[in-house]
């Protein structure tokens, strides 16, 4: 896999993505609508409480990253697998890593862009303040988007055909949102073990670092807070890569 080949596939994927009205509606508009709309609404309801708006924003970022990373990756790769487009890409001189890496890089970049636009829009339109440490926040958005996109590719291994890719992927954004507090106090009604399990999600790792960077504190404290989320993201990345390397299908099943 060379960087040039991976970038060539990513560019091709980007070109297709921005022409695809369905993908734009389902991913970009829905993500931006939810990600910006709910925190802005919360700001109107709970005026003068920036911490609540920031919490709502971080919760919605979990939803946005799952929709634009995990779901888009699962739906898009399953469709390209079933339409035999992945097979055609493999028929070029490109390595498998460049084909899959390029496809995922494109989706990850879109996901990061949507998450960052969401953050900037909410900070601009509401009483929420900007993150104290924007670099660390951005780094974890990028890492989170990468891992979540990888997990979407791994999830395609259990999706039998393109028609069911979307319904089989939708529950994850609900779970991610629930764990990240996107749906308000609903999370408080969950049993303790479930809350603990939800805290181990990759989206929760991004949200945890996000909370630190949106609160008072020091850079050293932020780094300390980021250690466990980094470990969580690393474990999920390893799981995704293992599943992809062993089970990823480039073509639809023959039987």
């Amino acid at each position: 896999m060379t960087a040039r080949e991976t970038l060539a596939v990513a560019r091709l994927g980007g070109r297709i993505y921005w022409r695809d009205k369905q993908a734009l509606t389902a991913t970009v508009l829905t993500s931006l609508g939810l990600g910006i709309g709910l925190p802005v609404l919360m700001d109107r309801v709970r005026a003068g409480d920036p911490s609540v708006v920031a919490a709502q924003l971080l919760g919605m970022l979990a939803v946005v990253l799952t929709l634009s990373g995990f779901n888009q990756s699962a739906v898009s790769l399953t469709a390209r697998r079933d339409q035999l487009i992945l097979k055609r890409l493999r028929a070029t001189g490109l390595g498998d890593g460049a084909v899959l890496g390029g496809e995922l890089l494109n989706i990850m970049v879109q996901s990061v862009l949507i998450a960052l636009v969401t953050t900037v829009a909410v900070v601009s339109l509401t009483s929420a303040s900007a993150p104290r440490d924007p670099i660390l926040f951005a780094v974890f958005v990028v890492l989170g988007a990468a891992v979540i996109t990888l997990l979407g590719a791994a999830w395609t291994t259990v999706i039998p055909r393109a028609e069911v890719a979307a319904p089989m992927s939708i529950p994850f954004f609900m779970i991610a949102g629930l764990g990240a507090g996107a749906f308000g106090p609903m999370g408080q009604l969950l049993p303790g073990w479930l809350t603990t399990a939800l805290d181990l999600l990759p989206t929760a790792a991004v949200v945890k670092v996000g909370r630190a960077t949106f609160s008072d504190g020091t850079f050293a404290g932020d780094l300390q807070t980021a250690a466990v989320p980094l470990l969580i993201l690393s474990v999920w990345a390893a799981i995704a890569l293992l599943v992809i390397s062993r089970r990823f299908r480039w073509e639809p099943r023959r039987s």
Partner: protein
Amino acid sequence: MEAIQVDGLRKSYGDFEAVREISFSVARGEIFALLGRNGAGKSTTLEILAGFQRPDGGTVRVLGLDPVKDRGKVRKSTGIMLQEAGFFPDLTVAQTVDSWRQLVPAARPRAEALELTGLTAKAGTKVRQLSGGEKRRLDLALATLGRPDLLFLDEPTTGMDPEARKATWDVVTDLAAHGTTVLLTTHYLEEAQRLASRMAIMDKGAIVAAGGMAETLAAQTGRVAFELPAGVEIHDLPVEVTAVEGGTVICRVPDPDVAAQTLLGWAGERGLRLRGLEVRTATLEDLFLDLASKENA
């Protein structure tokens, strides 16, 4: 060194044996046809040679390399026209070729690729609006974009009209004349006969006939057919009759020219005319029918 060397290749899907211990080789610069009915194992063989599938047994070398282990190196020197593969439907033909040019090293210029495959006039047409035959031509344009040393063509002219088919044959012949090795799978026997110098016929995963096209066909029986003249009985004829179909007598003979001369001499002596006389050497179709009748027997 051979461009392709296959020895004892096997591949199964569950209990179904798709390819059963086949062996063949393809010399550099040669056009080799792999023939057979649908489901004979041709495409599976081609997909293994192209490195898409791992064989269950046997050895395969493509340009001296293992197509699975050395897939990257093999693919850089090969072009593949798959029987089935998707396109991005919303890209135009020109955009598709341009996109693929970014993925293939030392690619042909777009204009050359489109001219080669007769798609220049369709450059601005979206892929979703192309006919099946035009999509096959776009497939060929992408397969030949990198000027490959070895070209795999899986049913290349399926869905094409006669004119496009002829044009595709010319492209393939021209590529071979410039040194490209071609492995062709087809169930159009005329196509194989026109293009290939050697062939192998597959049936139920095994090779049932193989060799040089001319020699293999020469070893087969030819065919003489004519309308039975009025008042003549079958047993009056000077040649052995294979079948009578709707008043037409069909004789399968080792040398159809000699049989025709015998018949014409016999008819001339009796003042008879052999209407609809047709004399031809064996075709691949005859060979196929022979193989099928042996199988049924």
